[in-house]
């Protein structure tokens, strides 16, 4: 699953390339020194001497990831110590370091440095790969290969003798928020272009039902998969940027425009995509000004129903559901939710006490959420709210 990543994400990662990889060790006479570096002399001796205390640190900091930021460089290392009587000081200290630009993010390289250090450590323990001779040409080849492959392909396979190690840089994204019942997953990339078979079995079962209109609870029911499993599947897909979550589409929904809409008339590419996405028929694309008018008319107090009655998108060759989808994905519009609130201290009627729905009227649940958890339609709940003057509907 981890092998899926979007192109644009990779583009972003390319911004923080590894500039240099060096191997430093503690020489029993000369002290800390760089014994192998690719490209050669990227980190000069003076600079190394300034920071050697962080590269070959005290025993307490062994096997910690240590990153030191200098004016021009960021050096990421993982100091390792091998205890053995055969070494000059009864121990062999080394550190494999990646060097990046000072303002780069290096957190995603940490596991790689650690794994590669462990690989080198294993080689050293097996056949004294690092300490046997002063000739480091093989190590230099290895470092050059790692740097090139990681910068180009984000992965690298190292083979030395009988041992192999696979290195991969994994993008770190913030943990996606928990998925809720009433949210609708929608694909961000073209569905046909990605391979179904690289996902796990549950995801494969869920994927066909992700169409941009079904909400999570419905997908769970239709795919016959347990609700929480669907949620974690969708959350996983969100993490990898395959899908995003949008609110469910209803004609009673209210949307408001965001400042981003102002960019739409100037961004020709976005416009073309918008027209292609929101047109009813590909052969007869909708006019941009009609699309723009639809979007700009969205505001507080105007539901999709009102908008459709006023502008009649079907005649304008616009598919209003896809229009809304596009606007939400691109952030041109946002949903205005309604939250029923029971006035505090209001004398509760008999119905309020008996009806379990009242416990949702706290102002923290939107109508969508209430519908989903109680299984009642929006119209039914609106009816209850309409009848009780103590319940207010706040739109935000």
């Amino acid at each position, binding site marked *: 699953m981890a092998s899926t990543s979007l192109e644009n994400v990779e583009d972003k990662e390319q911004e923080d390339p590894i500039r240099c990889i060096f191997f430093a060790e503690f020489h029993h006479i000369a002290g800390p020194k760089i014994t192998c570096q690719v490209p050669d002399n990227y980190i000069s001796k*003076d600079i190394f*001497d*300034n*920071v050697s*205390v*962080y590269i070959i*640190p*005290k025993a*307490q*900091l*062994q*096997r*910690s*990831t*240590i*990153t*030191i*930021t*200098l*004016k021009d460089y960021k050096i990421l290392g993982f100091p390792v110590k*091998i205890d053995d009587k055969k070494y000059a000081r009864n121990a062999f200290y080394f550190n494999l370091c990646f060097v990046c630009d000072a*303002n780069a993010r290096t*957190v995603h390289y940490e596991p790689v440095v650690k794994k590669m250090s*462990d690989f080198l*450590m*294993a080689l050293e*323990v097996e056949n004294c790969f690092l300490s046997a001779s002063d000739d480091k040409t093989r190590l230099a080849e290895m470092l050059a290969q790692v740097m090139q492959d990681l910068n180009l392909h984000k992965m690298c396979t190292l083979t030395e003798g009988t041992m192999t190690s696979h290195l991969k840089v994994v993008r770190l994204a913030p943990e996606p928020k928990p998925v809720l019942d009433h949210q609708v997953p929608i694909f961000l990339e073209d569905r046909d272009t990605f391979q179904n078979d690289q996902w796990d079995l549950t995801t494969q079962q869920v994927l066909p039902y992700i169409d941009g209109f079904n909400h999570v609870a419905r997908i769970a029911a239709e795919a016959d998969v347990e609700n929480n499993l669907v949620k974690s599947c969708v959350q996983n897909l969100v993490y990898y940027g395959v899908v995003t979550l949008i609110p469910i589409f209803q004609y009673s929904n209210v949307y*408001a*425009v*965001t*400042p981003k*809409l*102002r960019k739409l*008339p*100037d961004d020709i590419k976005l416009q073309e995509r918008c027209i292609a996405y929101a047109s009813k028929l590909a052969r007869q694309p909708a*006019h*941009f*000004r009609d699309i*723009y*008018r639809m*979007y*700009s*008319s*969205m*505001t*507080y*107090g105007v539901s999709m129903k009102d908008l459709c009655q006023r502008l009649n998108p079907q005649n304008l060759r616009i598919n209003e559901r896809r229009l809304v989808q596009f606007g939400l994905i691109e952030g041109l519009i*946002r949903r*205005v939710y*309604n939250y029923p*609130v029971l*006035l*505090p201290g209001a004398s509760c009627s008999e119905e309020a006490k008996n009806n379990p729905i009242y416990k949702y009227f706290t*102002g*923290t649940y939107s109508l969508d959420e209430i519908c989903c958890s109680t299984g009642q339609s929006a119209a039914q709940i609106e009816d209850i709210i309409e009848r009780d003057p103590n319940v*207010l*509907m*706040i*739109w*935000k």
Partner: protein
Amino acid sequence: MGIHPLSIILVKSDSKGDRLLFRYPHMTNHVRDLNQYTKRKNPYSLTNTEDLLQSLPFPTSNISNGNLTGLTDEVLSTLFAVKPELCEQKFELKVNDVRFVGHPTLVLSRGLKEVNSSMLFNIVFALQAQASHSIVKCYYDLSKRLGIALRHEEKRCGFLTDEIKIMVSTHDEIAGRSEGESDCDESPYELILQRSSLARGLKSVFSNLSSSGIVNIIINKWIQVRFCLPQKVHQSHKKGLLIDPEIIDRCLNSLRPYHGILLLTEPLDLLESLQIDCSPALKRLIQMYNPLKSLQTLAADSDLTLAQVFQLAGHLVYWAKATIIYPLCESNVYVVSPDAILTNQLLDSFSEHFPGVCLLQVINDFSLPTSISQKLNPLSQPQQQTQLVKIIIWLLKNHLLLQLHTYVRYIPTDIQDQETRDTNAMEGSESIWSLNETPKGTPTEIKEELSLTDKEDTLYDYQSEDYDIPSNDRKLLDKLCRLGYFDGDYHLEEIMYLENIRRSQLLQLLDKFRDVLMTSECEDAAIALFYSRLGT
């Protein structure tokens, strides 16, 4: 989110070597370390010392319960006593999941015996590793400021040397004591806190950062160091939103003379809290302050230049004393802010300010975009009006309301579409334009002119040839389009301000040319930066 510091550490390095002088919060590390080592998953399991690769007892986290652990004083002091080449610049070191940031400062020691010896000290903040670049930068700035202040005090009266002497002697005293007597588990840091004013100062820095985000200490009763951690200060009214200095800068860059400020505290309280040596301009500005005034009016009233008022406003916003609004006026349209969370605390605070009024009901009235003039009843009493204005100010202060502006975008009728309509119009003998109440141009003329224009490049640029109505309105439209006001980036208030025209004139224009002028209601981007769900 990592805005709170884990620890503050003071390290010195001179001819006698490096030493960790003070750290806060401090705790007895020994007890914890013992716990860590004795904790094994299975009490019967053997620790396999042979297997070098698998069983490595080194911790991967140096944070437990929000405290820095696993790093002894000696380790930290060697890490922070940097080489002279790295002094007087940013020091940033990440060990596992802790990020240390500081500004190593060099001072010439005033010691009488050694004349030319220099001493290095480093005030280091330990943060969580996920702290963002801008948070790290703010802490670096604080460390630098403290460093500069201490260096000055050292030069003036040897303050630092004296304080270091106190701390070192206390360390030695405790170390010596624990060898002789067995009953002293006392931490040297407790004693140092009692004896050293610098240590107390550092402690108050730490606790201020964790509680309010505003640091205000006077070092050696002489030099004042004031610092504000914007990410913390601006969080007091909103959870989950980090206001970085970059966001504030972006807001200030888009500040216009027609914007106003809204003080988040009472003007009198603010005046009292100001320093004695604060700028008289700031005092004057606060005295003249009124949420109904624009920055331009404020500048005129307080007799300051506009640039100065901008800077003062920026200052107030940075310190979370004020927020940017559009000055209150009758035509302002407000709606409930999307991130408004009505907590019980807010409800109580509201009913305290406005007894007898229910916040929920007030908020409910703004579920639909509502202007102040709509809320005002011509029959209502003057005090009701002032009450309404007060309520709106309170809501704005708590970011419960959002102001909507009307943006205008000029989009000409589609050329293709127009042609078909034109042909239709000719066949149907009725001009399409008459339907649109914009007569006097014959369809054929329009068609001819259109065919001359370059369709590709200027599809959405304004072409005055489209309309042939020799009226004042057309001239105004022509002018405003040419000036780019209808590119969607200007709201009505801004156009009114820049072109000095009346709202009614603009509304009339919008109505007449509603075919090509599309309006949308949206928040002002500069102000929206302070709302969590709207930013970026």
